[in-house]
C-alpha cells in the first residue's frame, strides 16, 4: 500500500513521455497542423480533388495493372477527357514539383511509396 504514490508517479511520468508528441505540438499551437502542398496553378485533374486526396494510390495501382497487364492505356476522366495512364508522363506533367507536392504529404503520413525507385522525376527530386 505504501507504494501507491510511487506507482502513480511512474504512470504519470510514462504518460508524459509517451504523449510527448501530443503535448509538445499542443504547447506550440501546432495541433491542427496539415502539410501545405504546392498545387499546380493551371489544369484540371484526372479525377476530382476529393477523390484524389483520399484514393490516388488506388487509382495509381489500378492504372498500373490496366496499363501493364491489359494494355488498357487511356483513362477517361468524369468530364470525358482522355488521359494516358502514366505517373511520370501524365501526373507529373502538372504536379511537376515532387518535393513540395508528393513528398510533403507522404512524409507527414509516414508512408514511403516505392514508385520513385523506377519512375523518373523531372525536377524537385
Amino acid at each position, binding site marked *: 500500500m505504501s507504494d501507491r504514490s510511487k506507482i502513480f508517479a511512474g504512470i504519470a511520468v510514462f504518460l508524459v513521455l509517451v504523449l510527448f508528441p501530443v503535448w509538445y505540438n499542443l504547447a506550440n499551437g501546432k495541433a491542427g497542423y496539415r502539410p501545405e502542398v504546392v498545387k499546380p496553378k493551371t489544369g484540371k485533374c484526372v479525377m476530382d480533388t476529393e477523390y484524389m486526396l483520399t484514393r490516388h494510390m488506388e487509382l495509381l495501382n489500378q492504372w*498500373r495493372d490496366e*496499363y*501493364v*497487364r491489359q*494494355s488498357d*492505356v*487511356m483513362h477517361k476522366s468524369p468530364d470525358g477527357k482522355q488521359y*494516358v495512364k502514366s505517373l*511520370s*508522363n501524365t501526373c507529373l506533367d502538372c504536379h511537376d514539383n515532387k518535393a513540395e507536392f508528393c513528398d510533403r504529404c507522404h512524409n507527414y503520413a509516414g508512408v514511403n511509396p*516505392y514508385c520513385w*525507385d*523506377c*519512375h*523518373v522525376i*523531372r525536377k524537385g*527530386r
Partner: protein
Amino acid sequence: MADTRDDRRTFLKVAGASVLGAAAVPAVIAGASSDADKPAGKQWAMVIDVQRCLRDQGCTKCFDACHQTHNVPDISKRVPPQMLAKRIIKWIWKEHYEGAFPEQQHEYMRQSLHGAQVPVLCNHCANPPCVRVCPTQATWKRESDGIVMMDMHRCIGCRYCVVACPYGSRSFNWITPWPRPFEEHGTPPNMKYPTRTKGVVEKCNFCAERLAESLRTGGPYVPACVEACPTRAMTFGDVSDPGSDVRRLLEARYTIRRKPGLGTRPQIYYIV
C-alpha cells in the same frame, strides 16, 4: 445360346469401333501438330538479314538506340571487369555466329559467317520457356500480339526465367541500375520511360510502349532498333499476316532460327 450370340455380336461391335478409333488417332495427332507450329493469333516478328548487318561490323546503332530508349544502364564502370560478363544488362547485343547458331554451323560454311557478329535479342518465342517457369506471372505471352511481356512490379527476382531462356536474353539487375541523383552518375535517363530497381529481371519488350503510342495516335509501329539500323537489315511485322513485309521476306529468302531443336519456336528469323 441366344445370350452367347448376343455377347459375341456386342464384343465384335466394340472391338471394331475400337480398331477404327485407334486408326484415326495418328491422323488427329498429325492434323494438330501441323497447326501447332504456327502462332495462334497475331504475332510480331522480326527478320534479320545478317549479310546486310555485316556491311558494318563495328556498328552499334541498334543497341545504342534500344538501350537509350529503355534506360538500359551501362554498368561497365561500376562492376569489376571479371564480373561484367555475368552482370551486364542488355536487351539487344551481338553474338558471334557460332555462338548464336551452335547447331547450324560447320567449318566449311561461307567465309563471311565465321566469327561474324550477329545481332541477337529476345526471340519472343511462340512457346516461351521463361513464361512457363515464372512463379508470379511477372512475365507472360501477350495474347493480343504474341509479345513476351515483363511486369517489373511483379518480378520477385528469383531468376528462374534467366535460367530457362536458352538464348541469354534476360538480364538480372545485380546492382541499382540508376542511382539517384542522376547528376552524380552521368546523364539522366530517358524521362519518357521508367528505370528499374536492383533485384528485377529485364529484357527486350519489342518496344511495346511504342506500340501503345502508335495505337493511340494511329502512327506507325516500328521498334527503336529497326528504326536505327542504317543498312535496313531488320524487318519487323506481323508474321500471322500473309501480306506483311516479314512474311514476304520469309517467302522470298531462306531463313533460320536460333536453337530450333529446343521447340521454343523463336520469332526472330535470320537470313544468313
